[in-house]
């Protein structure tokens, strides 16, 4: 591989992105030229924008690495990503969210919830959740990009994190924060083309679909003993039911990420930006194909990398990657793919990281400026616009620094777990009230607050005292009760979402039943134009 050529390609790519960002900014100062403000958006752009935001280096690098060790049962997450993340999200949630957002003049996810209930508390709390916890998900995306740079360019991981942080900072400053429609289209198309090429090339390299899967099935003896003891006995079969890895795969990854996508603030806001339901209808087809090719490739290639590595080096992917799951996909691409594809994949990764990071920082920025400051803490007193601008930028800078620190401090193989924690936490707190506010006129502000706080505190308790991995890190359970987790045996690997989401749903529903709706005019306004067909 020629590092000079690779560096030139990266610089060329960044120049094109910067030019598109600048062109989007300067050619038309009105809102019509921007994805986040322009309603005359082609459904292809809408689907690509949603897809490029949804699919990040976390999915490609992190979950691909996890699949290399846990096997093809992660295809259940691919099913969830398409059926829940596209079909349910667009058809069931998207149309009502678009119309209700318009009726209430809501521009962010916290604002939609706050205005629906006339509750400043809900808007500020949701804004704070995004400001405080989104950096964890952003760190997962940043780690994925840094691992690729580390692997392809041979630079130390810490330097990769810092270099990519500077690139993201520059991208954001040059207009990427506005998620310019041209950039989204280019980035989404690059991700799609790169992943489709990877899928086809890998299967051709392995002699076709059935030969590849049969070869992987025959490798069952190569699975590390500790993984076998935890429940994975073959990479082409599901884990043993009720085994520790069965719970990890189905409660943390499939349930946490599969359902958690419905209450992701940076994705929900996409529904508010389209002109009509027609764009959402069309985006269902385009988005599903995009997700199938991108995450389907990741979850299939991860396990199949074992066959390639074993035939070439006599070792499985986990060992070749230095027992760091986050390095499996970068090493697989670098070691087994032709040089031209390495160049293409570098741009895929840059696209996947930047499109997601820009939307994450847009969500963080609007949470600070609109949800916490303007319509939250200072709604009555008001704030000078310059003060809001200054505090917003300061908040984004603090978030970026926290993201960098997390990227440097979090351990190996953390991408998928960090993503699942954020997705699960957002679902535990907000999915129940968000669902009911769209479909049930009798949900009350007290019910919504009970559900949000119930989901949050049960999640917090579970992370501190119940879920083995996090409870051991915090050490509070050990200090207070002398044991790393209060739950015995298998229960210590059950994801907090399994406890928190039902509690949140039950509280939201039950408290709404015994309290009265206090904002009837707002409810009438929110549901204007919403019919059973929506």
């Amino acid at each position: 591989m020629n590092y000079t050529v690779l560096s030139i390609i990266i610089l060329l790519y960044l120049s094109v992105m910067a030019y598109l960002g600048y062109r989007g900014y300067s050619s038309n100062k009105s809102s019509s030229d921007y994805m986040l403000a322009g309603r005359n958006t082609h459904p292809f752009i809408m689907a690509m924008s949603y897809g490029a935001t949804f699919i990040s280096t976390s999915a490609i690098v992190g979950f691909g690495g996890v699949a290399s060790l846990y096997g093809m049962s992660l295809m259940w997450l691919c099913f969830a990503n398409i059926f829940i993340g596209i079909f349910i999200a667009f058809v069931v949630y998207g149309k009502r969210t678009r119309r209700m957002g318009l009726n209430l003049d809501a521009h962010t996810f916290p604002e939609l919830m706050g205005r629906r209930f006339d509750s400043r508390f809900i808007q500020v709390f949701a804004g704070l959740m995004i400001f405080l916890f989104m950096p964890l998900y952003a760190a997962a995306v940043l780690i994925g990009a840094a691992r690729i740079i580390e692997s392809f360019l041979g630079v130390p991981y810490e330097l990769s994190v810092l270099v990519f942080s500077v690139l993201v900072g520059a991208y954001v400053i040059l207009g990427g924060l506005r998620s310019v429609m041209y950039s989204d289209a280019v980035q989404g198309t690059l991700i799609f083309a790169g992943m489709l090429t990877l899928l086809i090339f890998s299967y051709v390299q392995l002699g076709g679909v059935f030969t590849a899967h049969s070869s992987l099935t025959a490798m069952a003896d190569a699975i590390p003993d500790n993984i076998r003891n935890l429940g994975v006995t073959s990479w082409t079969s599901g884990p043993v039911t009720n085994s520790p890895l069965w719970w990890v795969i189905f409660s943390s990854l499939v349930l946490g990420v599969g359902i958690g996508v419905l209450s992701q603030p940076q994705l929900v806001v996409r529904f508010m930006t389209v002109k009509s339901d027609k764009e959402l209808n069309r985006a269902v087809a385009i988005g599903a194909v995009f997700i199938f090719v991108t995450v389907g490739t990741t979850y299939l290639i991860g396990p199949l990398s074992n066959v390639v590595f074993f035939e070439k080096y006599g070792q499985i992917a986990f060992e070749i990657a230095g027992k760091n799951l986050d390095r499996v996909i970068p090493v697989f691409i670098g070691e087994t793919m032709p040089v031209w594809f390495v160049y293409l994949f570098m741009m895929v990764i840059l696209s996947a990281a930047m499109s997601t990071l820009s939307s994450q920082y847009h969500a963080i920025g609007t949470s600070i400026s609109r949800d916490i400051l303007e319509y939250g803490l200072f709604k009555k007193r008001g704030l000078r616009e310059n003060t809001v601008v200054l505090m917003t930028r300061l908040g984004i800078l603090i978030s970026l620094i926290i993201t960098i620190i997390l990227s440097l401090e979090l351990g190996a193989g953390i991408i998928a777990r960090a993503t699942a924690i954020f997705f699960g936490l957002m679902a535990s707190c907000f999915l129940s009230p968000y669902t009911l506010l769209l479909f049930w006129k009798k949900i009350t502000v007290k019910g919504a607050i009970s559900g949000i706080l119930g989901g949050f505190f049960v999640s917090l308790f579970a992370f501190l005292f119940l879920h083995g991995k996090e409870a051991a890190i915090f050490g509070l359970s050990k200090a207070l009760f002398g044991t790393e987790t209060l739950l015995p045996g298998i229960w210590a690997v059950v994801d907090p979402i399994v406890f928190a989401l039902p509690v949140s749903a039950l509280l939201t529903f039950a408290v709404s039943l015994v309290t009265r709706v206090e904002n009837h005019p707002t409810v009438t306004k929110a549901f204007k134009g919403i019919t059973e067909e929506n």
Partner: protein
Amino acid sequence: GDLSVTLAILFTLLSLLLCVIYGVVKWNQGGEITPDEAD
């Protein structure tokens, strides 16, 4: 793969088919905008 993985791939393909059919059938529906909505 085994039944679990085969079902996962099958359901994935069925979901993809559902989305594509839905998108194609509804391709030209839902584009009506009322004056109130335009405002």
